[in-house]
């Protein structure tokens, strides 16, 4: 429904660090530094997120994972004291260029938050609201059904689409938030610890869901859960104190890390 207008130009050339995969990077940070006031939260990060893969960002608490993730769809714009240096490109386009509308960016790069945050509207309205404000003209019922099916929530809620989303369980609410993001037909979905407020069963369902979705979307997930990162992701980035310590295929990062700090962290020796 939302067509990608930005053209693919110099995407590969713009990335300083070679992507460890064959698929081209869809998002890339170049020498990205983000400060809150004077205090840097992300320092000179270069990373290329491969398309149609799941990339996990791991690291100890306060190392800048959420800050980095928010830079990918300009949600840091809403933190007044955040200052950004360096660049982020999306399919080769600089997201922080003068003439870029952050609203357009977020239509293509969706986000799921740590705590489920459904709108206090009906289940159906939660899904259809985003497309509606963005000029969706098609069949709303179909849109809702498709999104809910993709998020594996349809069977549980199909009989109460007009009831308030607040009546759902936490895990259902989080899947609704994922469905809401999917209904926008985004290119990329950013997830900031999407399972941290959920029980193991709901977590497992969301992990299955991510697995199914990765053929259609690019997913970047921040997680504190090592097993989760190992289970679901194709690539893993390890951040420490704002710096990107290691980035590579998940299997390699977890089994044969190149850096001692990564080794200690994934082995649970610090963080």
């Amino acid at each position, binding site marked *: 429904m939302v067509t990608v207008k930005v053209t693919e130009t110099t995407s590969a050339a713009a990335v300083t660090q070679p992507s460890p995969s064959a698929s081209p990077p869809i998002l890339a940070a170049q020498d990205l530094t983000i400060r809150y006031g004077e205090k840097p939260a992300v320092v000179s990060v270069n990373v290329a997120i491969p398309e149609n893969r799941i990339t996990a960002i791991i690291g100890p608490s306060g190392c800048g994972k959420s800050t980095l993730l928010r830079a990918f*769809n300009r*949600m840091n714009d809403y933190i007044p004291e955040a200052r950004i240096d360096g660049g982020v490109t999306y399919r080769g386009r600089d997201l922080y260029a003068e003439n870029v509308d952050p609203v357009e960016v*977020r*239509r293509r790069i969706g986000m799921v*938050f740590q*705590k489920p945050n459904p*709108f206090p509207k009906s289940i159906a309205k939660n899904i259809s609201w*985003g497309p509606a*404000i963005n000029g969706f003209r098609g069949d709303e019922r179909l849109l809702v059904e498709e999104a809910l099916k993709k998020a594996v929530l349809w069977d549980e809620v199909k009989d109460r689409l007009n009831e308030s989303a607040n009546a759902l369980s936490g895990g259902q609410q989080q899947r609704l938030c994922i469905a*809401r993001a999917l209904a926008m037909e985004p290119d990329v979905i950013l997830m900031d610890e999407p399972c941290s407020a959920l029980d193991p069963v709901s977590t497992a369902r969301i992990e299955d869901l991510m697995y199914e979705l990765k053929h259609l979307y690019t997913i970047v997930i921040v997680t504190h859960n090592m097993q989760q990162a190992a289970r679901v992701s194709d690539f893993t980035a390890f951040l420490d104190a704002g710096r990107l310590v290691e980035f590579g295929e998940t299997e390699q990062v977890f089994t044969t890390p190149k850096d001692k700090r990564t080794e200690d962290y994934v082995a649970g020796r610090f963080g």
Partner: protein
Amino acid sequence: MASAAGSLAIDLDAKRGVRLREGAVVASLFTCALISILTSAGIVIVLFWEAAGFFKSVSLWEFLFGTRWTPLLEPRSYGVLPLVCGTLLVVAGACVIAIPTGLACAIYMSQYASDRTRRIVKPVLEVLAGIPTVVYGYFALTYVTPLLQQVYPDTLVYNAASAGIVVGIMILPMIASFCDDALRAVPESLRLGALALGATRFEVTVQVLIPAALSGIIASFVLAISRCIGETMAVAVAAGGTPNLTLNPAESIQTMTGYIVQVSMGDTPHGTLGYYTIFAVGALLFLMTLGTNLIADRVLHRFRETYE
């Protein structure tokens, strides 16, 4: 083992001194609460007692549905509708001014203003809310009315429109401040969630934040209306003293509160029927503001259930 446990016995007995002190504190707090409740109850009882005296001579029907209010002049007539109409005219004028402006002001403050602007605007609004209302009355008389007369020459010196306008200005800070609080009480996560779906700030405000804060916003309107109904000095000064069943805001009218002021300050002898009218009007006024406050309370209650 048993003896060791015995020697380690933990003292859980209540201490006499502590208990007495707590008791004294609770008793004195209770007394204070009781005094304030008894005073209010006493006032209400007197109000209705005296009003009951009035209704021995005038039927409730005549009072509520009569269309002429001339209790102090011959031929005497005790229909309260002109006063109610005058009050509602002022309330309507005030709402037309204050509701859109106040809401817009709240949207600006909560969503668009920088922290610095907000730190200046919010106290200014609070100062505005603290101006004695009689000042608003004279402001209406000396500034708003001449202005209205320039636009519409038939406007009388005392008129409903200027009273409505200044009462509107008067309640604007209250609406702005309450709506600002209501909008800010909506969890930040909802706002961010909506923004992350590619919504503009305006779309987020109008379609997510306002619906989410709706009960708080409506409650602020109802409380403001209740304040308009009960407002005295500004309307007594600006609206005139002519009970008048009219919807024309350029005419002179009298509100319920305006009438009570007139009689209590005038030379109507105590004990006459004319004097008792103020209790009847007062009782009706009390019921009207009580009703609006109860509505506001119900609406706010719903709001709390959703978010706390």
